[in-house]
């Protein structure tokens, strides 16, 4: 067994799912004994068998990765409760192991994954999805890139053909429930920690927070960073459509058309709205210069 074969074997063992009560499984998926497998490369000592030594790493792995994802989704945890949430995180991670040197991205596919797994949504699929999407948008807004913004004075040079780039940290969501209230309530109770540390991991349970009642009522939300804090800002439908069109690379003229295609506002009303959007965007630094090679 060369070094690569050794590492493949041990990685497979370390990342193998645990039993429901967080012990190492006695058998592998092909039915063969984990004990025999552990003995094939790990020495026992006078205190621990090969199995028990491997189990330390197997458990550590699952504690570490589940904790990393759970930290990004405290509101989802509060909404679903500890039992369902823990199962959801485990199932998600079985299908989406880490493929990056940083734990920062480990939960990135959770909203998408949840869409395909309504069984975890507690019969409130739309609400659950909204919360998950908003919590991941928070992560992106928290440490996404920030480019030098366009000033109000730059806007005088804009034409219908201009391409406006949005700040990479700015996230846009259309949500079926006003989950900004729910997520804010939970996030105020939980503090963020470093992404990675030298410490071994322990199992932690989510804190109990009283959740605001949620009734279906669509909102459009911008999640953005301003002076290093993340804010949620509700948008009207037209502003949302405009920003989405710009984010998709449509030139300004066409983006404005998309924004007001179904609008009942008069041309004057639309002009006033556009004025308002641009002054807010300038204030918050949402538009930025195109990178040189992007034209």
């Amino acid at each position, binding site marked *: 067994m060369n070094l690569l074969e050794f590492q493949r074997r041990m990685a497979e063992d370390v990342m193998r799912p645990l039993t429901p009560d967080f012990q190492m499984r006695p058998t592998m998926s092909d039915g063969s004994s984990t004990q025999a497998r552990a003995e094939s490369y*790990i020495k026992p000592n006078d205190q621990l068998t090969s199995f028990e030594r491997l189990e330390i790493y197997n458990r550590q792995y699952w504690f570490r990765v589940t904790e990393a994802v759970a930290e990004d989704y405290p509101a989802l945890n509060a909404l679903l409760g500890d039992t369902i949430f823990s199962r959801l995180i485990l199932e998600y991670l079985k299908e989406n192991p880490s493929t990056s040197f940083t734990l920062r991205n480990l939960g990135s596919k959770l909203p998408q994954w949840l869409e395909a797994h309504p069984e975890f949504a507690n019969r409130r699929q739309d609400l659950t999805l909204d919360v998950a999407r908003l919590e991941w948008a928070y992560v992106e807004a928290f440490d996404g890139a920030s480019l030098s913004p366009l000033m109000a004075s730059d806007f005088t040079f804009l034409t219908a053909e201009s391409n406006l780039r949005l700040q990479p940290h700015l996230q846009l969501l259309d949500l079926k429930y006003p989950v900004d209230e729910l997520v804010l309530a939970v996030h105020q109770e939980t503090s963020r920690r470093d992404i990675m540390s030298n410490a071994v991991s322990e199992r932690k349970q989510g804190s109990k927070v009283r959740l605001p009642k949620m009734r279906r009522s669509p909102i459009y939300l911008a999640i953005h960073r301003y002076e290093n804090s993340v804010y949620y800002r509700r948008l009207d439908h037209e502003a949302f459509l405009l920003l989405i069109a710009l984010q998709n690379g449509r030139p300004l003229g066409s983006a404005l058309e998309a924004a007001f295609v179904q609008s009942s506002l008069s041309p004057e009303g639309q002009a006033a709205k556009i004025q308002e959007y641009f002054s807010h965007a300038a204030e918050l630094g949402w538009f930025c210069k195109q990178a040189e090679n992007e034209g």
Partner: protein
Amino acid sequence: MPANRFNGFSEYGVGIGLRVPHYDHIFAEQPIVDWFEIISENYMVDGGRALEILDQILDRYRVVQHGVSMYFGSAQPADREHLKRLKTLTRRTKTPWLSDHLCWGSVDGRYTHDLLPMPYTFEAVRTTAARIREVQDFLEIPIAVENVSSYAEFHQSEMTEWEFLNEVVEAADCGILLDVNNIYVSSQNHGFDPFEYINSVPVERIAQIHVAGHSKFEKYTLDTHDHPVLDPVWGLYARAIERTGPTATLLEWDDNIPSFNEVHSEALKANQYLESSTPPAIPGAVVSSNVTEAVHP
């Protein structure tokens, strides 16, 4: 060694890890701290508060980068994107040296995010040394490799852990971040004499030392970094300092983090050993009755 080519010829004293719960205290009180160690990965982000905080810290303090995901012992090549981001950060911090662990943790693009122990084989020596050289050449700063705590030993191993460490650092021509707590934890788990380990390490390559707290369970000892340094670890530290002379020392406290002052004063306990040691170290010298006791348990 006080200042050597493995720590960029710097003479750093006692530092602590820069951790989120201490930010407010650091900015409000501006305490005197010799240096901070940062976990590189927490600042390898595109933007946001972490980088702004780091810049403010860099204005006032000396910072050294410590990584947890380079996996020098991995059988497969380093991730170029990771290396590029790391280099960008080293330019920002101007870290005089950079440390990461003598371990592995990923294979075929899957990451365990753990510091997994190596099989101590000659093949692993060659692979690991080549990887350290590659990273050192790319980053253009001195690299120090840190010994990890381990809970397993392998049938494949052809040498002891300290022989493996010595072989790797000689072949890679790199420095050592000697974690005396990790030596203690592993000695408890594998039944070796930790002083034999410390006595065999090439002192001229020691760039930095880590001390930390650990937890003892019924059948094994875990590297938890969640409370003060225990006496046997200070004993090993004393012996290490006796051999090396004053060396940059850092206390790791990563979980159940108490107040800044509590962490800092725990770290500053290292000064009683550092102040009584004489550079260059005279091997076997009796520097104080306190230390003598610890050295000869």
